[in-house]
């Protein structure tokens, strides 16, 4: 394989358009929100250009939050009946040198290390699973190395949950999804994170985008989706995707990381006025190179 071929196969450039439209049953007089829709430059990913267009907008301010996510605070204070948010980003994804994972339970159990990474270890109400669930999982991974345990946890999550939209909501907990045995990527990720943390393996929630099929052709535009997956600490942060059992690859684009969904919502805030009538979200991904 010549170098040009390797470059082509190991770097991809995407343009991602994420359009959200709110339509209200009447007039809204004021609206204050935060938007987390801008992919950062991070390991394996370079953000080339990001634009956020909001209508109506009376003020906006962009900052980086505690978890490193780019956040835009937006305000709309005139009377309005609709709110449009369009985020268009150009991102390059590239393969990073795979590193051998050699982490041991002893290293993970070091109190000092656990304290440093306590943000990714301490239980959160949304991700903690009932003791009997955990006990059952713990039994399944007995005797495994951390890396094997992670793989087993991801497999268990995939085996136990059936992907089905509409059963769980944006505020459902890992335990809710476990009991329903159904959920979407958010629930798969919460369950996996909860189990990993309970095993003593630091884990974090990643939100972003996923191409609709593997290896999109150059120039092809496709309907994409917002997606969520998991990273665990094995000496470095390693991605796993419990929803698809897919390797986190060049098909995934990172937007935000946090302890669970509550740290990374694409859109949150409050408004004053008529109830929401219609919400539509559309993600399109075009592979540029």
């Amino acid at each position, binding site marked *: 394989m010549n170098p040009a071929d390797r470059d082509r196969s190991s770097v991809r450039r995407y343009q991602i358009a994420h359009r959200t439209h709110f339509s209200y049953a009447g007039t809204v007089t004021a609206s204050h929100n*935060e938007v987390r829709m801008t992919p950062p430059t991070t390991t394996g990913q370079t953000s080339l250009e990001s634009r956020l267009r909001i209508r109506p907008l*009376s*003020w906006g*301010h962009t900052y980086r*939050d505690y*978890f490193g996510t780019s956040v835009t605070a937006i305000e709309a*204070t005139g009377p309005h009946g609709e709110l449009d948010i369009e985020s268009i980003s150009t991102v390059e994804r590239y393969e990073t040198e795979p590193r051998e994972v050699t982490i041991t339970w002893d290293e993970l159990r070091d109190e000092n290390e656990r304290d440093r990474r306590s943000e990714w270890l301490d239980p959160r109400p949304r991700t903690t699973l009932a003791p009997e669930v955990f006990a059952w999982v713990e039994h399944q991974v007995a005797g495994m190395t951390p890396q094997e345990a992670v793989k087993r946890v991801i497999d268990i999550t995939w085996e136990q949950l059936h992907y089905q939209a509409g059963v769980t909501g944006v505020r459902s907990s890992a335990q809710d999804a476990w009991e329903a045995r159904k959920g979407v990527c958010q629930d798969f990720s919460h369950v996996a994170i909860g189990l990993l943390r309970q095993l003593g393996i630091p884990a974090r929630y990643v939100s972003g985008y996923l191409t609709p099929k593997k290896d999109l052709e150059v120039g092809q535009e496709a309907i994409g989706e917002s997606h969520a997956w998991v990273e665990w600490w094995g000496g470095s942060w390693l991605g796993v995707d419990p929803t698809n059992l897919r390797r986190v690859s060049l098909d995934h684009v990172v937007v935000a990381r946090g302890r669970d969904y509550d740290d990374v919502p694409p859109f949150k805030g*409050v408004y004053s006025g008529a109830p929401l009538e219609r919400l539509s979200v559309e993600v399109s991904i075009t592979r540029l190179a």
Partner: protein
Amino acid sequence: MLAGDGRTRSQYQPIRDTLNRMGGELEHRADALARSYLDQGVTFDYAGEERAFPLDLVPRIITADEWDVIESGVAQRVKALEAFLADVYGREGSSLPRVVEAGLLPARIIRNSPHFHRAVAGIHPHNEVRCHVSGIDLIRDAEGVFRVLEDNVRVPSGVSYVISNRRAMTNVLPEIFENQHVRPVHDYPRTLLEALRAAAPDGNPDPTVVVLTPGVHNSAYFEHALLARLMGVELVEGRDLVCTGGAVRMKTTDGEQQVDVIYRRIDDEFLDPVQFRPDSLLGCPGLVDSQRAGKVAIANAIGNGVADDKLVYSYVPDFIRFYLEEDPILPNVDTYRCVEPAARDHVLAHLDEMVVKPVDGSGGKGLVMGPKASGATLDALREKLLADPRGWIAQPVVQLSTVPTLINGEFRPRHVDLRPFAVNDGSNVTVLPGGLTRVALPEGQLVVNSSQGGGSKDTWVLAPETDAEETDEPGLPSAEIIVMTPPEMADEDDWQDQQEQQQQQTQQTHQGPGAGAC
């Protein structure tokens, strides 16, 4: 001069002489005082009824030398708390604070604090002040040493009583001020206003300052209104404010007017529904983002509660050494951290000898006095403590000193605490001379708050260079004699200082932990 039994006569003697001379007249004065407090609205709700805030006619006296220690100790503590908060919040993202990297404080203690607000990480106040107002609660132990009982750097309350008590005392009992040189307290509103103005974004030379109150039904509303009035600024509620164009504005009869500095008396969780409780009607949506964009200053800063958490409290002496490279002037009360297994075992073995407190409770909420608790209470406590060790600390019952207090026309020793107020304007930490002295009126009671029979005292800091006529003995030792016996055995002639005053009943008020507790 010496008292008959050879002990040094305390600084209370002239006051006691004056009050004794007044005889039955005293009761009329006490009535007049209560009536004037009712008329002014200096009240608290007791079981749904409005009662005058009880003020004892005997002031608490702090000598100039004692005050030197308190003043420098409180200022030092505030500087260390500021440094800690800057370390926690003033950095990009989630990188570890210096104090954690140095191995002095586990990261978990910060991250697990319910008052650690990630939403304000990375916000830099214009003049780097986060504790514009601090209330540092002190007690005086049986050895006469002032110790810090707890820090209050969220929305410390009670300063209105300091101001009202002094005004009431000078009106009702002018006699006792004769021949005394008491340091005034009326400068406080001006000091506070200057500090708030200094906090304005972009160093605006003529900023608009407001006091933000939850409303008239808040138990500290009297204080909010008093401070707004004495500073000559508007007292606003959340519904008076609106964020437009990223700036905070108040709705006036002349349209919207920009606000530069908000002295807020609302808890963090209610300030901004975008970041915190979305159901809050008390705050103003967009406030935090406006502050982050440098358009408004919020005093005290959001997230300060991570510094007055009672578990973090136990590390403050370390902070003083680490950030300021000084030795602590005021010691803490000995504290067991239940999160540490050895300490937890010790506490569990001695539960009936300890005062056990939830780390984020203010106002004495959830506090258990081991020696007075029933077996069932202790069992329940043991369970809670095991379930959430991070949530609790324990302290030995400290024997508080007492000060003379007028009870049914007689002077009796009662336990007290002291909350000095410190104002930080970015260049100086100014400690208001005196502070709020709360007194536990029931005999032997170690917990002081209004709902448990607490009262307050006017707190006198004597000016240095004690006047010759105040005591005929120039060489009077500066320290008072401390009563070392348990309170019920104290000789009532020894007025020592015991004090705790009652406090108002606001949610943020703290209470009296016990005296002994602590």
